[in-house]
């Protein structure tokens, strides 16, 4: 807790166990080179997303995600002062696309994983806390969803809803929540038998209060780590679906689609096989580093918070 000592505000970590825990984890976090790398990568992408209007001023201010293009010539043009990363097929500017694509990626990651977290945590805690028939039914539904590969189920749902980026996000939410529900349920199941929960119940606390004030704060960590790992993998799956042609209309700033646009220009004309290297390489590297950043971060968080792996 905070208190004033010699006219300075001092964080006393000895006083509160949760703060002590936090300080310990924080120290481990900054000592681990992988987590710092992951965090830095995400921070750079965050800056790119925030300063997108400065880095690449939109041609149509009310439609910033539309990539500007000059003409419809099919053959890509190499990097030049005017187009720093060159242009892809139909002359879409690659630099503009990857910069604004960063915003798209953050939007997909946060929207999908945020919704999944809310749905998964709610359903999982209801299932674990009340048990019985409700639990049995919810867990069988989870089993069914988890028996289908993410990509294929998401693909089927997007087909049914119609092609668009929003529908890709919806399908990923539908596919993604079960694992969160199952993880939360597991923790809630053990926690609800703890003494502090029984005490709260004896004092007459409502179910709602017990779940949100007493159980969830103790059960949420594994799920938050899962979420940080999932931001990367959801963006990756969304990009794959975009690549397959299920995403936004052509010309939208989206990394997966930009890789897909490059498909006909993988191999250059005879004699210059690597002529169009920039068309596929640049958007792909943006996806790779974005996902890598989140995975490094999530992996490090798991190492730090996992009681089996940490040794004091």
């Amino acid at each position, binding site marked *: 807790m905070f208190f004033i000592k010699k006219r300075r505000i001092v964080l006393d970590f000895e006083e509160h166990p949760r703060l002590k825990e936090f300080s310990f984890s924080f120290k481990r976090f900054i000592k681990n080179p992988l987590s710092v790398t992951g965090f830095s990568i995400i921070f750079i992408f965050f800056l790119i997303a925030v300063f997108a209007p400065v880095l690449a001023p939109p041609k149509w201010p009310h439609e910033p995600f539309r990539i500007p293009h000059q003409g419809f010539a099919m053959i890509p043009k190499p990097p030049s002062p005017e187009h720093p990363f060159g242009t892809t097929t139909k002359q879409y500017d690659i630099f503009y696309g990857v910069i604004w694509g960063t915003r798209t990626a953050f939007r997909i990651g946060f929207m999908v994983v945020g919704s999944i977290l809310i749905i998964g945590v709610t359903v999982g805690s209801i299932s674990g806390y009340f048990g019985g028939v409700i639990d049995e039914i919810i867990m*069988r*539904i989870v*089993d*069914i*969803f988890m*028996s*289908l*590969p*993410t*990509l*294929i*189920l998401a*693909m*089927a*749902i*997007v*087909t*049914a*809803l119609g*092609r668009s980026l929003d529908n890709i996000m919806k399908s990923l939410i539908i596919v993604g929540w079960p694992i969160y529900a199952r993880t939360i349920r597991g923790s809630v199941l053990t926690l609800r038998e703890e003494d502090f929960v029984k005490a709260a119940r004896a004092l007459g606390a409502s179910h709602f209060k017990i779940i949100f004030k007493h159980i969830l704060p103790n059960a949420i960590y594994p799920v938050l780590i899962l979420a940080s790992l999932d931001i*990367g993998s959801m963006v*990756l799956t969304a*990009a*794959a679906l975009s*690549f*397959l*042609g*299920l995403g936004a209309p052509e010309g939208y700033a989206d990394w*997966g689609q930009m*890789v*897909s646009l*490059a*498909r006909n220009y*993988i*191999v*250059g004309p005879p004699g210059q*096989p*690597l002529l169009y*290297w920039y068309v*596929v*390489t640049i*958007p*792909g590297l943006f*996806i*790779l580093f974005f*996902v*890598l950043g989140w*995975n*490094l971060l999530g*992996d490090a968080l798991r190492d730090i918070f996992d009681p089996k792996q940490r040794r004091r």
Partner: protein
Amino acid sequence: MNFLNYVIRRLLLLIVVLFGVTIIIFALLSLFSPAQRASAFIRDIKQLSDLNDIIRTYGLDKPIYVQYFVWLKQIFHGNFGWSTTVSRTVLEAFKFFLPNTIELALFSAPVIILVGIWLGSLSAVYRDKPIDHFTRILAIVGWSLPTFWFGLVLLMIFYGYFKGLFPPEVLSLEAQNFVNSANFIRYTHMNTIDALLNGKLWIFFDALRHLVLPVITLTVVQIALVMRIMRSSMLEAMGKGYVLTARAKGANWKTVIKKHARKNALIPVITVSGWLFAGMMGGVVITETIFNRKGLGWWWARAATQLDIPAVLMAVLFNGVLFVLTNLIVDLLYAYVDPRVRLK
């Protein structure tokens, strides 16, 4: 007796899951218009002209639960509908595309599992040494790689720069012509195996050359899972008492690793291999699309973009069945290997 109970319990769960999968499929199906849904009931191309008849015959304007049972009956009769992307019935298309996908899986799975086990145990044995850091970074980068992009970069290098060293698609033109001719007998419809059975080595090597890049793409992305599980279970096994005992008795370190630690560490890998199989089918969709390898994944990807509903539904159903069956096999194997599981 216990073992039999275990098997029966698992089989009952299988039925529940399969019903669940069909209900999900049906829920998806009900999002479409009756005319689109009617295509799921078509048996051959002539029926395309009288969609209204089909809507009436199968009651596609009736209440949803009635439709579900009608549809389920059709599935049990082996009628999966008409796939517009490839202009065949779904069942024919499935039989046509299956061999290429099995071939890809047949070549990738051993590489993923064996190399994954090898790297994982190497990383555990040399814990916190450079080799451990290297393999861990390799795993996390592989896990973050966009499959579709990685495959394209491989094509750019090995097809473009090295002048067609490892080409896309399934066979080169001359090999394809020979395979389709009368003096080549198709036993399994898998090119590599048929070539060996026919004693045509040049076709075998041609098919193999076309397999290299898809196998590498699938492996690099999928291997991280096996490596991670193997590493942690190997670390756990190496801390166990029997390893220490064996060491104390003076057994050679290599023997202890190979015979005592690694054998026991393999058990969790068996569990993961079921998941691996399911994950691989997702990877297959992407891999086959990039390399233009005409298999199930290639077909499903095209079907999804061209609103070919019966084919997409087939994809979901097939993957559900595949997952449930592989998990059943894995569970049985697990119970067989580890008596603690079946006695619980």
